[in-house]
């Protein structure tokens, strides 16, 4: 999923002009480590942070349902951004910035919050075993039994001024490596990232909304990705889908949009109900916006047609809320979607770089 390349922190504070691709993700990589094809991922170590790489995230989305069938969506994201290559330093001078995004979406609205911190003081960070990712009071903490993958069971909490959630997650499927055993290519010119997911979470817990507490259940998808230059120069943004189908299969699909229309780079992974993953070649996927909505002064495609003819997939993806706008340092669209057509289901859609 490259998609998530999003945000990033690169940009953290001093938001530079976005001349170098969305959120500065197309910047050059002097001094940072680069992903290499053929490097095997090691767990649980790779659940933790990779400070040699410029950017990294722990990105969790969940499609949830209340007791009366009301659909909800939540997002919990922790971004790490190295401010300078090399030794990160210690204490306040640690050149690692952290940014948290949390959101809760239902049919009545979209609520979001953001947190910033630097590494080195204990305000934010990630440890691989026992697994904990945190920024301020927001936490994603491993609850797995000894011997199991630390990500296989999690507790998750976050809050903003007008919402909070507290969820328990447990995975009933394996980790999924995207691309070539976790080496995920992002452009014809070879830009790539390490990218794996845990898309098989069962979720239960409580949402707190202005109207009171709501017990919920549902499913969640965690993306882990790190890189140093995930976007090629000339790539402006992306549209990224993570979809849960009712038959148990899952689809990750994205397209990176080039500056000239038609030069989009498409990729994806088909995940069978048993967890076996098949990378999708760029021409296997059809992605087409059907309708746009004016959000935050921009035209955002909030209805899509996706087709994967080889698997007989022909679906319509519709945003639960058109206004799922993340008004954060680097603003973007991220929200729950409904899927109808050949493979009904739910999922999350993320869109960046729309001006």
């Amino acid at each position, binding site marked *: 999923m490259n998609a998530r390349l999003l945000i990033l922190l690169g940009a953290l504070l001093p938001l*530079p002009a976005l001349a170098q691709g969305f959120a500065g993700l197309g910047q050059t990589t002097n001094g940072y480590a680069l992903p290499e094809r053929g490097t095997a991922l090691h767990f649980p170590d790779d659940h933790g942070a990779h400070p040699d790489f410029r950017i990294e995230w722990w990105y969790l989305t969940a499609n949830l349902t209340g007791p009366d069938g009301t659909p909800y969506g939540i997002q919990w994201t922790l971004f790490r951004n190295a401010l300078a290559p090399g030794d990160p330093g210690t204490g306040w001078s640690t050149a690692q910035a952290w940014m948290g995004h949390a959101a809760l979406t239902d049919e009545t609205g979209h609520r979001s919050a953001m947190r910033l911190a630097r590494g080195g003081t204990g305000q934010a960070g990630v440890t691989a075993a026992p697994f904990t990712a945190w920024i301020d009071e927001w936490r994603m903490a491993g609850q797995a039994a000894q011997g199991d993958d630390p990500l296989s069971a999690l507790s998750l909490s976050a809050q903003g001024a007008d919402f909070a959630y507290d969820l328990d997650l447990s995975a009933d499927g394996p980790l999924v490596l995207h691309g070539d055993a976790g080496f995920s290519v992002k452009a014809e010119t070879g830009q790539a990232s390490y990218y794996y997911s845990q898309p098989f979470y069962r979720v239960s817990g409580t949402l707190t909304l202005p109207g009171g507490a709501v017990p919920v259940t549902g499913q969640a998808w965690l993306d882990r990705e790190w890189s140093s230059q995930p976007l090629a120069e000339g790539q402006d943004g992306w549209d990224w889908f993570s979809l849960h189908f009712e038959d148990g299969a899952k689809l990750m699909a994205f397209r990176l949009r080039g500056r000239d229309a038609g030069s989009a780079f498409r990729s994806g992974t088909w995940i069978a109900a048993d967890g076996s993953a098949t990378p999708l070649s760029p021409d296997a996927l059809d992605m087409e916006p059907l309708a746009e909505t004016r959000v935050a002064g921009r035209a955002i495609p909030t209805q899509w047609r996706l087709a994967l003819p080889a698997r007989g997939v022909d679906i319509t993806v519709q945003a639960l809320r058109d206004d799922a706008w993340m008004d954060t340092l680097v603003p973007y669209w991220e929200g729950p979607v409904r899927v109808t057509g050949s493979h009904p289901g739910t999922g999350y859609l993320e869109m960046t770089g729309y001006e």
Partner: protein
Amino acid sequence: MWRVALSALLSHWRRHPLQLATLLLGLALATALWSGVQAINAEARASYARAAQVLDQDRLDSLVPARGLTHIGQDVFVTLRRAGWQVTPVLEGQWSRAGNSVLVYGLDPFTAPAGSLPDAMQGEGRIADFIAPPGLAYAAPQTVEALQGVAGLPPLVATRGMAPGMLFTDIGIAQTLLRAEGRISRLLILPDQPLTRPALTDIAPALERRAPLQQADTAQLTGSFHLNLTAFGFLSFAVGLFIVHSAIGLAFEQRRAMFRTLRALGVPLRVLVGLLAAEVMLLALAAGLVGVALGYAIAAALLPDVAATLRGLYGASVSGSLALRPAWWLGGLAMALAGAGVAGGQSLWRLWSLPLLAPAQPTAWARASARALRWQGAAAGALAVIAVLAGVYGSGIVGGFLLLGALLISAALALPGLLALMLGGAARLARGPLAQWFWADTRQQLPGLSLALMALLLALSANIGVGTMVSSFRLTFTAWLDQRLPSELYVTARDMAEAQRLHAWLEPRSDALLPIWKVEGTVLGGPAEVYGVADHRTYPDNWPLIVGRDDVWQTLARGQGAIVNEQLWRRAGLSLGDAIPLPGGAARPLVGVYADYGNPKGQVIIGVDDLTGLYPDVDRRRYAIRTDPAQVPGLKTALVDEFGLPADNMIDQGRVKEISLMVFERTFLVTGALNVLTMGVAGFAMFTSLLTLSTMRLPQLAPVWALGLTRARLARLELGRALLLAALTMIVAVPVGLLLAWVLLAVVNVAAFGWKLPMHVFPTDWLWLGVLALAAAGLAAAWPAWRLARLSPTALLKVFADER
């Protein structure tokens, strides 16, 4: 008709360009001094406001250390954040090295309130440079300039719109600069907080929540200083108005014949008065513009000194460069218009009530009748009563200035009467016709000169008063410094461990090692420092007590009392035995009061064991060393060799005194400059009055000339007369000035700074001032006298030929 009338009126100025210049210059000078002072005040206030707005502190609540702690541990910040409290840390402290001092302000850009950081920090890549050593420091351009070449600071970035005298750095960099690793001064509570948070008392019981800084401490501390400046500006303005009044009065008198003619030709009174009023306002506007420009120049010249004073005296940073604020220059213009209105009102009123064809006699100034003198005397008496009442019942700095104002104006009003009495006495003693004529003529001229003489009196007494105050202060201050700084060397260790090693090393090498340990906090509603003193003879031998028994120091050593500085004592109205509440909740009875000149803050002294008992984490890195003065250079070298202690961590007695005196001198530099300017204005007033009189006095001089007195002799007599009047005014000015000095020392200083000073008199200074006044009067009279000496006899003869 209008146009003809106007051109007739204006022709007067064409024929008397000097008079026009006098009027314009007088008003411009008055406006300049007033608006210059206002510009300085406005700039200072803007600086305070900017400092208070840093990080939105003027809007945000903060968490500060409670119960006697001096700082917050940085772990408390992390604990609070991880509990959901949206807070941002601030570390603040004074950084000094080699005579340069700057307020270092450490912040965390990641958690600081959105939009509160300088725009310049938002540059690409800046964040990494900002937090990674050596970091970046953002500061106002003039601060960057002032710190050019100073070692030990991060690279400086000049940033417009920032408060001067401050460096903004990352909190980590600030901790290193201020040697405060792991420490935070306070936490600001951000406006947006999440849904749920634990109670503060559960997670951080050692913190206290405080309301936003509504007003910076500095603004309160410096309020009286600015009132002082304003009073001076107003005095100068008043003196300047004397010039304007005499110039306008003269122009009206000289045009009486023209007014009569215009009225006779049919110009309605209303139109005439309207035209004249318009003329005055136009002139005022022109002069006001010049005055505001001059004021800007004066302020720009004085501001660096004022800024240095404020920094030295109050620790307040003020921009050294001036911004042009509309409120200020509009205010200056308004003052010029109002001043011209006041100065011209009387003349317009007289014209309004003038009979249509009143004889156009030049009255050479409204001749003060005995009745007018009586009125003036009565007003002087009434003001004197007000002054006494203000002295007895008034309180605070406003009362002090009321007393000053009433005193000065009363003296000025009484002056013509006093001079008339003196001249009358002299006339009775005079022998011979020439002497009698001289005294009588001098007395006859008094009304015409009285305004200028009143201005001179004001300037002279202000000079004597302020001079006496400054000199008294200097004398007291230096004597006090000598007593108060008995220790030969002061050292500051870089950390606690080094402090312990230093202590062990220095103990056998010195006569005594006296801790200088303090905590800062709030005592009786104001910012204060609490020091602990060792039980050592240095203190009873050297520390001057204003109130207190001999056993004060033993009482402190036993932890059974506290002494406070004079400022705190007066401000809080304390008496011996009162409980002094210390930061953190403890209290000690007051057993003594000591003088503490030059310190804006309240101060409490307790025993050093008492201090460490109450505040276990007090900073213990500073010591004063008693030793043979001859040992000091060797000791400093040894400290560098043994400990690698930077030179800035050691300061000897001489240097401390030097710095203190420098601050003192700077404080009164501006006062001195304003004094000189006021004198200049008074001298100018004298000159214009004499010049005016000289043109109108021909009818009086011509008969004396005709009786055989040469023009040269007449001119010498004119000169002598001016000197005589100046000398008499000086004689009156001395007691008035001394009264003024007493008010400044005993009333205004107490209100403004919190200390009372003994008054010392300096007669030699008066002698010099007298010479200066005579020189000013002589110079002012010289030209009119010279003109008289060179006057063509025909001009004098013409007097007899004229219809008058």
